[in-house]
């Protein structure tokens, strides 16, 4: 007996358990070979999945493969089907999902992905009064940003600051310095010796790098009170961390300062949190729009709000006086062509896409955003290298999560 989502049913499958309608009557009796009309009726009824047996001519293994492919393809509906990177990512995603399936993962059904009651949420602003500038001003006005953040900023701003200065500031917050040390000591950061003090971390990793990592970590603690119906914070930060991991891996391949990219990945969607906080109902509409029109969330934000999370990230990080290089690549990760550092922004763009791919069999909801051929070429990657990247991510992701979340 197999549980099959209504959207994956095909005529000929044999119902294994009866389906009951709202009046408790029997919609379909078990043993019936389903017709197209039956399947339509189940859809109208809003049945999300049914139990079926496959008829003799359907090879169960092939049937599962077909369903998994159908499910995975939906995530690629917005991207260029001839783009070598996406073709490879599609193959990877199908393999991963098949493996997840063998390990007990259940293919999520459309109906379940849709349904959520969010009618109680209200926006703080009406559409025209809720431009990115307005909501960022409101957000920054509330700021009770972790103290440690401002102290680090001061050190960063002062060209004369030394490793000791950074270490001194970081050490004032015990919980915070512990996290930082755990992070740089994780195998992912790959230092051969144990780093037992912040001072040593700073001298090994560099003043700038440690400070930007510190900015990233303190931001995670800042955002609370996001309506959990929209997205729970853990899901949000897990996606961000995946992106951070990929960004660091990609940057390291190109000999770029990889810890900065880790932070950029970590904060790449930060503007979305501000939108969720200030415009929760409009956010719901954007989420609905993205699902129903099968577009990436960024595209749905633009359609519903008239702007997207990168516009908000830019203003927020400017108001928080983040380093300009970091703002540039975060704010343009969906449009590297207008970034000062196009290639660097492209790294975050691709890291985000990889993070989305890694999530397809782990709760992913939205269509992947695309990537221009030019930006992909700038990365200088070969499609066959992507499997290794995803494996490295899998190896380190949970460990990084346990340190930071």
């Amino acid at each position, binding site marked *: 007996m197999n549980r099959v989502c209504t959207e994956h049913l095909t005529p000929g499958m044999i119902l294994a358990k009866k389906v009951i*309608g*709202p*009046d408790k*009557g*029997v*919609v379909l009796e078990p043993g019936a070979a389903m017709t197209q009309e039956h399947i339509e*009726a189940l*859809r*109208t*009824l*809003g*049945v999300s999945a049914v139990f079926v047996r496959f008829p003799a001519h359907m*090879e169960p*293994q*092939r049937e599962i*493969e077909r369903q998994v*492919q159908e499910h995975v*393809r939906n995530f*690629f*509906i*917005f*991207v*260029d*089907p*001839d783009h070598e990177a*996406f*073709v490879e990512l*599609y*193959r990877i995603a*199908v*393999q991963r999902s*098949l493996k997840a399936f063998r390990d007990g993962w259940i293919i999520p059904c459309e*109906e379940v992905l*849709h*349904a*959520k*009651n969010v*009618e109680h949420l*209200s926006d703080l602003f*009406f*559409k*025209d009064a809720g431009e990115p500038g307005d909501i960022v001003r409101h957000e920054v006005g509330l700021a009770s940003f972790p103290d440690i953040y401002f102290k680090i900023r001061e050190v960063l701003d002062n060209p004369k600051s030394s490793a000791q200065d950074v270490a001194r500031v970081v050490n004032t917050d015990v919980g915070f310095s512990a996290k930082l040390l755990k992070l740089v000591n994780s195998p992912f950061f790959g230092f051969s010796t144990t780093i037992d003090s912040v001072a040593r971390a700073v001298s090994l990793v560099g003043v700038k790098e440690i400070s930007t990592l510190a900015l990233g970590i303190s931001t995670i603690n800042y955002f609370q009170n996001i309506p959990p119906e929209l997205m729970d914070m853990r899901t949000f930060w897990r996606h961000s961390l995946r992106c951070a991991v990929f960004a660091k891996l990609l940057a390291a391949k190109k000999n770029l300062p990889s810890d900065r990219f880790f932070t950029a990945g970590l904060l790449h969607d930060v503007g979305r949190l501000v939108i969720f906080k200030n415009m929760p*109902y*409009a956010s719901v*509409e954007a989420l*609905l*729009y993205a*699902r*129903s*029109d*099968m*577009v990436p969330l960024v*595209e749905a934000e633009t*359609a*519903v*709000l008239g702007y997207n999370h990168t516009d908000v990230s830019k203003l927020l990080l400017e108001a928080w006086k983040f380093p300009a290089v970091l703002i540039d690549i975060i704010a343009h990760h969906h449009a590297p062509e207008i970034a000062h550092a196009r290639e660097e922004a492209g790294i975050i763009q691709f890291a985000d896409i990889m993070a989305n791919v890694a999530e397809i069999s782990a709760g992913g909801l939205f269509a992947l955003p*695309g990537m221009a051929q030019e930006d992909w070429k700038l990365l200088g990657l070969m499609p066959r290298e992507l499997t290794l990247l995803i494996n490295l991510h899998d190896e380190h992701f949970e460990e990084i999560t346990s340190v930071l979340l």
Partner: protein
Amino acid sequence: MEPLKPASLTLRKTPPISTREFAELRRFIYDLVGIDIPERRKYLLENRLGPRILQLGLRNYSEYLMMLHHGPDKNTELKYFFTKITTNETSFFRDTKQLDVFETHVLKNVLQECEAAGNKSLHIWSAGCSSGEEPYTLGIMLHEILRMSIIGWKIQITANDLSPDMIAKAQAGLYGEYALRTTPKDVVDRYFIKETQGYKIHPKVQKLVSLGLINLNDKLAVKRVPKSHIIFCRNVIIYFDDAVKQKLISNFYDNLLPGGYLVLGHSETIHKLSRVFQPLIKPGGIVYRKST
């Protein structure tokens, strides 16, 4: 059995759309229904229409366009086409906060004014009604307000959509749990009949609603709609560009009776498009009023 070979997996299943074909198709859709499909959505359009092209045994999008323009079955195909290029997400009691504002500040007043003027007839137009959840919601609200006295009223809710599939669904009036997810349980009990095949809208609500096809980008069709006290057009103009929006808003203005109301979707605004309406701003939503 041999395992799945990853190399055999491809994303491309249908013929590619060329730059020229995309431009022509985009123009065609825009001119016809006012929906502008940006370049970014090219592959999405391919995914929506590609399977149809294969099904019809056509080789490319040029042939498909030819068929839409000149084919002997072009009207039948156009209906299918409309279904493919629109999205119809909706539900009963969608945006309850806005509906509360509407009920308290608009609907009750309009009913009172009609009654005071000795003309107990009301026309509401739901433009872009999808599968009927919105007009039926309005019908339920009227029953809830007027109760028994509704029999003294002549009420019509005209509900139109571009997609024939959606109008057919609305006509069937049969819904699943998803459509009812934000509807209070007692309302479900009173206005829906539980059948084996789903929740059926009660005939006393259904008879208030008259369904039909419309293309909101067709000025003449819009002009034929009877004058309205209230127009609902929610989550539709989001698909149009400013020029089409502007035209439509002005047609709505002409359709409304003096003092009539226009209700748009939560995130839609005419702020930058039209100054002829008076916005009524309440916590929970905005409605627009035509001057008396």
